[in-house]
């Protein structure tokens, strides 16, 4: 049945949307017509949510693609909703609701949405007003609010219009992710050495022994397991294939080329702990930025050419390939050899190192500023708002200036940004500590405990500093100031006096001898 034939609700048959009106929000404004909105610390009008409206689903995907490339989607997933909505005139559009964590997040979302033809609004429940733009840097407030028609779920207030929408259906993001086809990347199969550090091979069962032997001969470290993709239904006969799944490390380029050209061997590159995408292909959306969507108990293989997603029970239990090489057993020959004595075994200790992280980037909690950049920090302090000055703590050390920010402010953009791998354990952003031992084990071995900050700088040894050594930046910002007494002056300006005519005595014959103009003596 077409929407025209349906007996729609009253609002759907109502007249065209009314002409809206928005007022520019000014700095310091505290009262607003729109319900559920308030200014954030920067003075920008913000509701609990941002609402992005796109004409088609392609717009939504393009936005997700753009946004995930710039910032992790994980921070939005808690309240992200994608819905298909319908206007009173029957046209369909797509609405994406995101939590308005901060105006910086909504700024980024709005910029990406504008780039792909979407519009951004903010609000809390039903009324959403246009988000700020260049013409009104602090946002807009609705000038006139009208109640929603009975079946409308949201109303957006634009500059020249108001529009109501009814929600038709929701589109979960995880389902959308699995539906999207991978796209081929030109030259994407030529992997750099760091990209070849760990790879997955899906090998047909019949080729298993040959591949194991070949890898073993070429001294490639690897582990292998027999996996069966989970069946979606009892009739899913085509998925009842059994594969050998290899996890290999530092695969040489020549072997990679050989495997790529061998039928029955498919190569996958891990993006996160439990997601891998076929080499040469990429998912439109950065999967690493939405890791929380993928259950930890599943391992996801995104095929490129076959356009399918296989899931495998995780964690993967794999065995070393060195134990699976063919053995020649000759029981007839007697063995002979020396008896050796084993001395006391030393502990196997490996040094702790920094390595590029595969995990999505964590929140930056601090910064380590080299001492030579202290002058920049001094200049920057003049421009910081009071909330930032209050939210930062700093300590001056011989290794640099350590800045630690409270959770509600953004860290000063100077020096090396630091992320927290465990409470008080700071590493440079984008790096991880290897070996990946549990945080409590790591803390114990480092002698790290509460009240301490252990910092791993990008170069040089780690150092520790007590929490008490960090002082609020607003206290450290001021140099010693000599204050002298000042005399209070009266700055009031007297109003200008009225000009008053005073007639001076001029004598009885004031005009005696006064000559007319142009007349001589």
């Amino acid at each position, binding site marked *: 049945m077409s929407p025209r034939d349906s007996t729609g609700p009253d609002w759907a048959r109502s007249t065209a949307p009314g002409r809206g*009106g*928005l*007022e520019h929000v000014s700095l310091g404004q505290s009262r607003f017509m729109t319900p559920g909105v308030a200014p954030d610390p920067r003075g920008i009008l913000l509701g609990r949510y941002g609402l992005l409206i796109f004409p088609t689903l392609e717009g939504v995907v393009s936005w997700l693609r753009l946004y995930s490339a710039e910032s992790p989607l994980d921070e939005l997933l808690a309240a992200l909703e994608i819905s298909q909505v319908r206007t009173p005139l029957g046209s369909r559009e797509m609405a994406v609701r995101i939590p308005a964590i901060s105006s910086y997040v909504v700024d980024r979302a709005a910029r990406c949405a504008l780039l792909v033809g979407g519009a951004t609004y903010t609000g809390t429940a039903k009324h959403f007003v246009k988000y700020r733009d260049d013409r009104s840097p602090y946002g807009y407030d609705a*000038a006139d609010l009208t109640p929603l028609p009975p079946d409308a779920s949201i109303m957006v207030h634009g*500059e*020249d219009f108001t529009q109501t929408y009814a929600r038709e259906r929701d589109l979960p993001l995880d389902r959308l992710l699995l539906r999207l086809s991978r796209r081929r990347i030109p030259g994407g199969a030529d992997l750099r050495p760091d990209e070849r550090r760990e790879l997955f091979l899906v090998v047909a069962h019949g080729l298993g022994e040959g591949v194991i032997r070949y890898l073993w001969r070429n001294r490639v470290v690897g582990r292998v397991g027999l996996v069966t993709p989970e069946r979606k239904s009892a009739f899913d006969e085509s998925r009842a294939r059994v594969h050998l799944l290899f996890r290999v490390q530092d695969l040489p380029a020549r072997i990679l080329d050989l495997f790529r050209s061998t039928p029955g061997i498919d190569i996958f590159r891990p993006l996160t702990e439990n997601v891998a995408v076929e080499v040469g292909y990429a998912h439109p959306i950065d999967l690493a930025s939405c890791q929380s969507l993928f259950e930890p108990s599943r391992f996801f293989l995104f095929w490129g050419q076959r356009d399918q997603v296989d899931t495998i029970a995780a964690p993967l239990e794999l065995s070393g390939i060195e134990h699976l090489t063919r053995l020649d057993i000759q029981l007839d020959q007697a063995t002979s050899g020396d008896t050796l004595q084993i001395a006391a075994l030393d502990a196997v200790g490996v040094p702790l190192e920094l390595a590029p992280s595969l995990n999505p980037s964590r929140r930056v909690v601090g910064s380590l500023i080299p001492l030579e950049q202290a002058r920049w920090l001094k200049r920057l302090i003049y421009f910081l708002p009071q909330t930032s000055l209050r939210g930062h703590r700093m300590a001056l050390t011989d290794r640099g200036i350590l800045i630690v920010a409270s959770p509600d402010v953004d860290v000063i953009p100077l020096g090396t940004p630091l992320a927290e791998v465990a409470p008080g354990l700071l590493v440079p952003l984008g790096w991880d500590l290897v070996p990946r031992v549990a945080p409590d084990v790591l803390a114990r071995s480092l002698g790290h405990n509460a009240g301490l900050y252990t910092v791993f700088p990008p170069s040089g040894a780690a150092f520790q500093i007590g929490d008490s050594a960090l002082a609020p930046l607003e206290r450290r910002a001021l140099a010693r100031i000599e204050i002298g007494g000042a005399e209070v002056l009266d700055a009031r300006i007297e109003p*200008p*006096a*009225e*000009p*008053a*005519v*005073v*007639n*001076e*005595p*001029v*004598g*009885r*014959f*004031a*005009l005696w001898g*006064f*000559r*007319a*103009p*142009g007349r001589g003596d």
Partner: protein
Amino acid sequence: MGWSDLGELLERFVLPLVSGGELVVGRPIAIDALGDLEAQIPHVTPQLVAVDEARTEVIAELVVRPPALVFEADELCLAACVHNLLFLVHPRADSWAVSTSARMRVLDTAQEMAARPLSQSRSRVLARHGLLHNLFRLTRMDTKISWWTGSATYLGQRPPGRLRTWRSVRRVREEQSVASYEDLLGTVEVAPVVTALLRRAPLTQLLAMTRDGPPLYWEDAVFLLRDAELARAVAYRSLRGSEPRQVVAAPARFAAAFEQMLERAPAESDVRAVAAFLVHLNALLVVGEAGDREIGPRSPLLSAVLSPERAGQRQRGLATFFSLPAALAQIDPRLGVPPGVATDALLADRWLRHRAQVVEGVGEAVIETLAGRLRRHLTAVLPEHVSM
């Protein structure tokens, strides 16, 4: 006392005229004496600097960068003209010893002093305004003392102390009154000279249009509207006040002078400039209401000044002032709506409400008549040539 010393004249008359205070009026200044006074200009630098600084302070309220002001013969002539006009209301100028012909000689002298060349130079106009800006604020304290056997009136003079002694015994009563511009310079006798004086300082006249004064000739003042900074100063000064009738007093006088201008043969560019300025004043009134949420759909200002009950008490030019945007929209829509109004939805909405309320208040016949008068001076523009 005669004014033979320029320093004394500057200190006791010119400086109070500029910055307020008691300005002393003595014997009139003859034309011949101007040459002697002008020759002293290089020798009275401290007094000149004080006057120039006071003038700079005055025009600093109007422009961001006041021009350098130098007191010279032009200012000396105009100041001497004002002095001589004020002498004509000196009590001694009205005594039996001063004949009518003698008064006429003083008046002719003042007229000749005011006959300085007209100027459209920005710095010259600002310099003259700095000197004459207080012309409409001149006052004089008059005192009348009555006692048991008689009375005496002292115009701008302090009564002698002997008349105030034994107040109760002699039943002394003292009454004070203030003579204002109308009493000092608004008389029929001196009005032509004041008009000539203000034609040399059109900025002073435009800025003082909230008060009664000589009639405005837009042809002399229209060049000021082409200077955005000065036009803005005039516009903001003309809309001062809180009472509706007070707010529209100056715009109504501007519009009345515009009506008079249309009866003459002005240049089309001048008509366009004045019309655009008046439409801009209309827009400022709209802007004043656009952001106020407490104001309903109808403008309280228009309701107060255009109410049918007070149609008989309307100021002259008021209907023309409010009808002008609608009349211009029929001839040249570019003049009918100030630029920028259409881009702001709230402002545009308020502008349309104002226009509708004006049509309701003054009637379409008034607008049509005004449009007809404007058509004689303005070249009509075809709608397709209008880009808005």
